């Protein structure tokens, strides 16, 4: 049996279904992210695991124990909030020791644990400071240390990096992953940032409108999206209208030019099939054994590591991402170009 299990869990608020028939099994030590847009039910699901919301239906078990209706203070589950939720009237040391005091841990052990946790997040010098004296990133590290101090069975993180600026966010997510792996703690992470989810997780749960769209490793989610929603939500995707679809041969016509697509990647296809392809799969120039199309460059956008071209294939616009190099020669707007991509990189949706 899985360490953490959610079976047929749903949550209804009034007439709104926030989470619908949610099933998930998480192994001990695993890092699972809930990824989805605002209002998709990811935070509600996390809060049900934490005990802050009671499921309308379903069962939640943790380490073979049914915790569905247990109150939050009985679950021994650590939670890190988006807004840090540090107690402003307590010093950093007092914040970290709060959960241990609630458990009536001997004073000597509390001190040892506080020092250990502060060492883990590299903030030993700040033990006597108040939260307002720390930066947002430091406060969130303390919140993490506080949640870990109680040796929780599961660590829940509710968009912990959303309130931080981009650079700190990148630093802190590395820190979170390092700490999670060091402690081997089972972790559920809620985010709407796909990069965060893909980088941190062993598995990603993509959610939409209260339902689980797909669950898989980051590579599976990105390379083999099972629904159009997942394909569009995770990463950039060209969705192009095609005609004369021949599923047997694996061919179709895109902007008057024949294209071969990946037949093996079978997904439910809509009545008017479209061709899906990631921008980074496309190259400028002819490639042997690849689909080759002619077009005209509309715009060239320099994004740093990547240069994004918008190419007009004759009424159909397509994005192509080129990796930037120092000596890269870029086409200019208006240039006629040939683009190519392998057949296994595109599929019908």
């Amino acid at each position, binding site marked *: 049996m899985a360490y953490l299990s959610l079976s047929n869990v749903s949550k209804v608020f009034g007439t709104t279904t926030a989470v619908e028939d949610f099933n998930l099994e998480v192994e001990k030590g695993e890092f699972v992210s809930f990824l989805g847009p605002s209002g998709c039910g990811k935070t509600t699901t996390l809060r049900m695991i934490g*005990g802050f919301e009671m499921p309308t239906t379903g069962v939640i078990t943790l380490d073979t124990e049914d915790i569905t209706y247990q109150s939050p203070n009985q679950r021994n589950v650590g939670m890190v909030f988006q807004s840090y939720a*540090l*107690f402003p*009237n307590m010093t950093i040391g007092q914040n970290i020791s*709060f959960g241990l005091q609630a458990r009536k841990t001997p004073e000597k052990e509390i001190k040892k644990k506080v020092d250990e946790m502060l060492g883990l997040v590299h903030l030993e010098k700040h033990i006597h400071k108040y939260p*307002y004296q720390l930066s947002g990133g430091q406060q969130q590290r303390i919140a993490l240390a506080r949640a870990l101090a109680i040796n929780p069975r599961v660590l829940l993180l509710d968009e912990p990096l959303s309130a931080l600026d981009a650079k700190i966010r990148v630093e802190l997510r590395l820190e979170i992953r390092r700490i999670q792996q060091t402690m081997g703690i089972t972790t559920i992470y809620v985010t709407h940032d796909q990069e965060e989810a893909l980088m941190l997780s062993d598995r990603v749960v993509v959610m939409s409108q209260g339902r689980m769209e797909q669950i898989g490793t980051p590579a599976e989610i990105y390379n083999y999206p099972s629904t159009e929603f997942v394909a569009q939500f995770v990463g950039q995707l060209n969705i192009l209208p095609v005609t004369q679809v021949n599923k047997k041969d694996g061919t179709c016509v895109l902007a008057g030019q024949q294209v071969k697509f990946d037949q093996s990647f079978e997904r439910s296809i809509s009545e008017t099939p479209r061709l899906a392809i990631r921008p980074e799969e496309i190259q400028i120039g002819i490639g042997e054994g690849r689909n080759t199309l002619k077009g005209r460059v509309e715009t060239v956008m320099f994004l740093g590591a990547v240069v994004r071209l918008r190419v007009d294939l004759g009424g159909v616009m397509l994005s192509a991402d080129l990796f930037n190099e120092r000596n890269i020669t870029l086409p200019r707007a208006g240039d006629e170009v040939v683009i190519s991509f392998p057949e296994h990189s595109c599929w019908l949706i």
Partner: protein
Amino acid sequence: MSSKQTFIQNNKRDAPRARPSSSGWRNWIVVAPFFLFTLLFIVLPSFSLLTRAFLDNNGKFTLLNFAGLFEPSILSAYWVTIRISLATAVGGGLLGFLMAYAVTVGNLPRAVRTGLMTFSGVASNFAGVPLAFAFIATLGRTGLVTLLLKSVLKINLYDQGFNLYSFWGLTLTYMFFQFPLMILVITPALDGLKKEWREASENLGASHSMYLRKVALPILLPSILGSMILLFGNSFGAYATAYSLTGGFINLVTIVIGSQIKGDILYNPGLGYALAIGMVVVMSVMMAIYYFLRRKSERWLRQ
């Protein structure tokens, strides 16, 4: 002139003007009524009070007015006033806090909060003769509630020791405007308690009482203290309600000041001014205590 210079000149001419900053004097005009009001009705009267407290009825310098403050009847007036103010500040403060807590942090329906806030807005301003009359009509010797209790439940309040025209009767009457005032001033502070603090506390294994003791109350303490000082001041300066209800039977400082200035038998305005200065001193002491406690309780706030 080169074309570049021409461009710069044109550019200067065409550049959008910076948003004009409001003239300083206009802002001062807007706040001038406040300063005028402060000068006319706070600074000048205070100055007048201070100087007249040192003058006798003939306009000559004297310290007798201040010596009069130490007469037993005057000291007793201060003591009664302080006791009533403390009782209503603590009683009204606690009652108001609990009610505000129930409608903000508690899970009562939103309509209860709306109703309570509306009532508080009205009741906190209901004082003076109308309030005294309302209490006489309900809890006076022949008041509606008194008679109802007597006829229905066979309880005679006045035989049980209750007297509306006594210290506790007046305290009860003051409570009518004190607890609604507490509700009005403490509610924003209670709204400021983050839900995440309670959730984090529960998540860390704390009971609700531990959360209250270690998180919620310490965070609210500065606001509670501030509100109670406001209640103390509100009661300390009350005159019309007490006078209308007891007719001067209870020896409050405000009533003594009134009788010294109105000039019945006890006409001695100099003593009245000294009494008023004494009230300022008492309030200053209370403010100093409040300031000390607040500093102690909110070390954790950004200074």
